[in-house]
């Protein structure tokens, strides 16, 4: 492929899931999602191969791979890595929304949550991130789904059935879990408990968004964005509609792929440094050459 029209991939090594996206002819040609396990490099390779298979592209045909996410430095196949705030912002700008340009990204991850503001040109403006407290992250949903004995992916539909959501008094997951156990013992309807849980997460994340300031269009991203109950609860807290992309879990991987595309096209990384050559190293090498761009803390 030519430098103008490179075939590239992004890998997002998250705390809970590893996501990969292959970009060819400026189109998402393939994606894959795998649970993150102990061997991060193997996870990354597995997700990449899944996305490549869907795209019908061979690994040798890739012009560049860029990694992102909490485990981004462990991805041997990546020539460069980029922090997930930058990757998300890049993806949200490129994916856009049917309602106009994206100005705010709300991302609930497996173990963190972030709110990002884009300026009028779609460039990253400012952000807030919670990595300290598991309330307001996907972990909250995971723990509560387990306590309720309900599959995580069914929480959304169940919660939407509620007419009388419970009020959880605890912010902390550990305490809320005991509270949920008592609510089950009191025979409160499961849908009301689930709706209360969605509300608790929405309030937590919504408060962070309000702190940063919310501008429309709001792009709601991350795995929990697939949960319609969370989306509705967050819309109620913020008073604005949220746009959920078709595949909210892979946005950061798409963002990393876009960084790879531009690195090949313009020979430069987002911070202006020259990109490494277009070849993609095999899984075993290239580790030493990987560079880290735009550490999240640098811009705060």
């Amino acid at each position, binding site marked *: 492929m030519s430098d103008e029209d490179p075939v590239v991939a992004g890998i997002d090594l998250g705390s809970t899931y590893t996501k990969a996206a292959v970009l060819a002819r400026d189109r998402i040609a393939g994606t894959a999602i795998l649970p993150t396990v102990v061997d991060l490099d193997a996870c990354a390779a597995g997700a990449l191969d899944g996305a490549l298979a869907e795209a019908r592209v061979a690994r040798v045909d890739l012009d560049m791979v860029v990694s992102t996410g909490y485990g981004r430095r462990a991805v041997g196949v990546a020539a460069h890595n980029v922090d997930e705030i930058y990757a998300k912002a890049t993806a949200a700008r490129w994916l856009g929304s049917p309602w106009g340009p994206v100005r705010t990204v709300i991302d609930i991850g497996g173990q963190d949550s972030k709110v990002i503001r884009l300026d009028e040109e779609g460039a990253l403006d400012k952000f807030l991130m919670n990595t*300290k407290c598991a309330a307001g992250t996907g972990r909250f949903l995971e723990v509560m789904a387990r306590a309720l004995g309900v599959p995580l992916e069914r929480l959304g539909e169940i919660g939407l059935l509620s007419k009388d959501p419970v009020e959880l008094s605890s912010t902390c997951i*550990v305490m809320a879990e005991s509270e949920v156990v008592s609510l089950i013992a009191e025979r409160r309807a499961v849908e009301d408990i689930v709706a209360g849980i969605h509300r608790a997460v929405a309030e937590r994340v919504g408060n962070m968004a309000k702190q940063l300031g919310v501008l429309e269009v709001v792009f709601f991203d991350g795995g929990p964005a697939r949960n319609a109950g969370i989306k509705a609860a967050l819309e109620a807290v913020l008073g604005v509609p949220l746009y959920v992309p078709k595949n909210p879990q892979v946005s950061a991987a798409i963002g990393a792929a876009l960084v790879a595309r531009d690195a090949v096209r313009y020979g430069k990384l987002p911070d202006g440094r020259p990109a490494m050559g277009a070849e993609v190293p095999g899984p075993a090498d290239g580790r030493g050459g990987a560079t880290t761009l735009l550490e999240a803390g640098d811009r705060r």
Partner: protein
Amino acid sequence: MTLTAGVDMGSTATKALVLIDGRIAGSDTRPTGSDPEQSGELALKTALDAAGAKLDDVERVVSTGYGRRVLGLADEAINEINANARGAAWLGSSLGRVRTIIDIGGQDSKVIALDPDGVIRDFAMNDKCAAGTGKFLEVIAQLLEVRVEDLGTLSAQATRPVAIASTCVVFAQSEVVGLIARKEPRPDIVAGIHRAIASRVVNMARRVGVEPVVVFDGGPAKNEGLRAALEAELGLKVFVPARPQLVVALGAALVAADMVGGGGEGVG
């Protein structure tokens, strides 16, 4: 004869204490479980048995703690900050007059500052986040498959306490799973957890202001390792009463005695 009782209805444990003429005559501690009122009644009856008294002999019952309002037997309910301050000041300490109380409960933690006369000057409370509470110890003990009451002994064998990066109990849980997988010695893990809790609680204490003498009470105060971690974090000696879990129930019994006019003057 003045006979009063205090019942501390905690989130995790229920404690009752019987006071006869300014002397501790009997006490009981039991898990709160799913029926706090029943636990409260049972604790009171058991404490009365130990004191050789009957419910009819009790002139006044004062309840306190998070579930204080569910105890129908109680004549009065008071908040646990007051009860704790009264109990700790009455017990006094071998180190001198009590000026600061650090209370770690099953699901909360409190710091109470007393003025030289034992009157509450200020306090801080965390009941929002499980880090810095006994719940943290419980979760970690479960993960390490040891009893909570053995954590103190275990941490005494630590040679290189691990640094716990997470503040959140949920994240720390994953972190400890990783430490176990990497075969970090358990004593080092437990000592690291004690440090994490101590640092959290001492941050809160510093907001209120720490004056010696510092009393450490609540169930987790029985944990020697946690006490040592608190002392290291504070840079001060910390006094732990003989039965730290009962201080709040004692305070409630003393307030009950004040009400009937037979309160012990105290030694603090």
